[in-house]
């Protein structure tokens, strides 16, 4: 068919609405508008990220637990904090998600097709708007919320769950858990049962079958799960804004505030560029691992 011209308007569209906007972020990051209205080149945004007020680094309990005080620029601290909570949430998603994916896959394998319902039940909450799902946690976690009511009803002390690392982390785990479970599930469900049986026949016990066969085979799923959880966790501004009560700063809502409230577009764009480069680089790193693993993917 000689209809290739029909694809060209789309290319033009993508240049205008995808490529140009990204270049504009870079443009705004490196320029500033002077009082007389002229636009000049500047590195001020990046200088602010690396300079600025110095605060003690609040990372992995460095200060509170180990007593080490490391002074870093404000924005770097926010970045470190976001990285920490995104990584911890990703790990929590993996820790809770892997067994769930494993059990779901095992049920599906056992009842051949009958377990689609369980998987569907698992995905349905994800179809609710992320905004609403996050909002729902407010009712559960607030000081006089349902969790605290239940806790005191069974004689346990009430806790402070909102506006802190726990609340934000929980919000992330809740929102992104399915992104971890689904890729692992889809890899596990395709694992050839005869491979597992072969390992058993050759004398491997349950633990060895898992560590030497099942786990390596599920690596691609784990990697894409990590990828799919880490990226939104690193860039969200909704979760810290809603569950953080306006005081909790992560890189996502710092950028959002710089654009929408402080209107310092140079710094905001510089931060966006740093974030984008970081996220894309970590994604590249993870997918490279995925490809390197393809040798073991023959069985999938």
């Amino acid at each position: 068919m000689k209809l290739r011209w029909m694809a060209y308007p789309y290319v033009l569209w993508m240049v205008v609405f995808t490529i140009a906007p990204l270049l504009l972020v870079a443009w705004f990051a490196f320029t500033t508008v002077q009082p007389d209205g002229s636009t000049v080149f500047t590195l001020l945004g990046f200088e602010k990220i690396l300079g600025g007020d110095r605060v003690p680094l609040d990372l992995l309990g460095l200060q509170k637990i180990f007593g080490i005080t490391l002074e870093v620029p404000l924005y770097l601290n926010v970045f470190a904090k976001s990285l920490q909570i995104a990584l911890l949430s990703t790990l929590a998603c993996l820790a809770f998600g892997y067994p769930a994916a494993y059990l779901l896959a095992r049920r599906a394998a056992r009842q051949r097709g009958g377990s689609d319902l369980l998987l569907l039940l698992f995905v349905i909450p994800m179809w609710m708007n992320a905004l609403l799902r996050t909002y729902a946690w407010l009712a559960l976690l607030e000081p006089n919320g349902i969790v605290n009511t239940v806790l005191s009803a069974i004689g346990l002390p009430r806790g402070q769950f909102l506006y802190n690392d726990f609340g934000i982390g929980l919000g992330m785990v809740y929102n992104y858990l399915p992104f971890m479970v689904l890729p692992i599930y889809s890899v596990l469900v395709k694992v050839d049962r005869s491979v597992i049986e072969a390992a058993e026949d050759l004398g491997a016990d349950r633990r060895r079958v898992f560590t030497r066969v099942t786990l390596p085979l599920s690596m691609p799923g784990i990697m894409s799960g990590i990828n799919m959880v880490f990226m939104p966790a690193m860039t969200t501004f909704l979760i810290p804004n809603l569950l953080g009560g306006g005081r909790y700063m992560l890189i996502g809502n710092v950028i959002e505030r710089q654009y929408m409230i402080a209107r310092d577009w140079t710094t905001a764009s510089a931060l966006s560029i740093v974030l984008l480069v970081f996220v894309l680089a970590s994604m590249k790193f993870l997918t490279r691992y995925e490809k390197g693993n393809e040798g073991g993917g023959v069985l999938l």
Partner: protein
Amino acid sequence: MKKGFRAAFSGGGTVRGLYLAFIFLFLYAPVVVLVVFSFNAAKSRSVWGGFTLEWYRKLFTNTEILSSLRVTLIVALLSALVATLIATVTCIGLDGLGKRRRAFVMNLSYVPIVNPDLVTGISLMLLFVFMQFQLGFVTLLLAHIAFNIPYAILSILPKMKQLDRNLYEAALDLGAKPTQAMVRVILPEIMPGVVTALILTFTLSIDDFVISYFTSGAGVSNLAITIYSMARKSVNPQINALSALMFVVVLALLLIVNYRSNRELRKSKEEKGR
């Protein structure tokens, strides 16, 4: 073999059952709470004060919500239509491209999918500001079309690959004009993909918050933005009522998409089986 498998895992059955139950409780608790408290007579997110439908009634007389509902629906409908139209045309064109150019276009399509929503939203906002567009309805619509097109393409492309290329030529040989061949031969063949694209993009548009947040201006907001500002201000059970309704609508739409794609899958399997 089956016995061995079961034996290997017996003993931990209750633990596994409990674990899955715990996960499902975790997943459903917020949703259930949200829906249950939409019928709460007390104006609280977490203290029950009896059954009422008042919030639903208030919802349908709240002009702010009604107007953002209108914006949401119009933007979803228009962006779904335009994105699917562009995607359909593009997919037909893609078929004629060489391998390299095709790969280039596909990589281009993955850029917005891979980009974090935050960056997509910001970059589009900067584009509109740079072009001195007033942020408002038009920019919101353009942004939605922009993030919808790649998903529409990915829905239609598989159908396009199944298409027999000779069909178009045959239609031309039999005297059809190119437009006739397109509308009466190719379009019906890829129709299932087109319909899936329509429903999917409509749903994505309704569901979007982040990109809308950055690309709509003062005075124009869709439901997600209205809910966000309501949620940050105070406790308002109308949000719960609205959430419950939106959940049901999106659920219904996605079940239809799911059902359709499953049916397609079964059909193509049957055809292969023949």
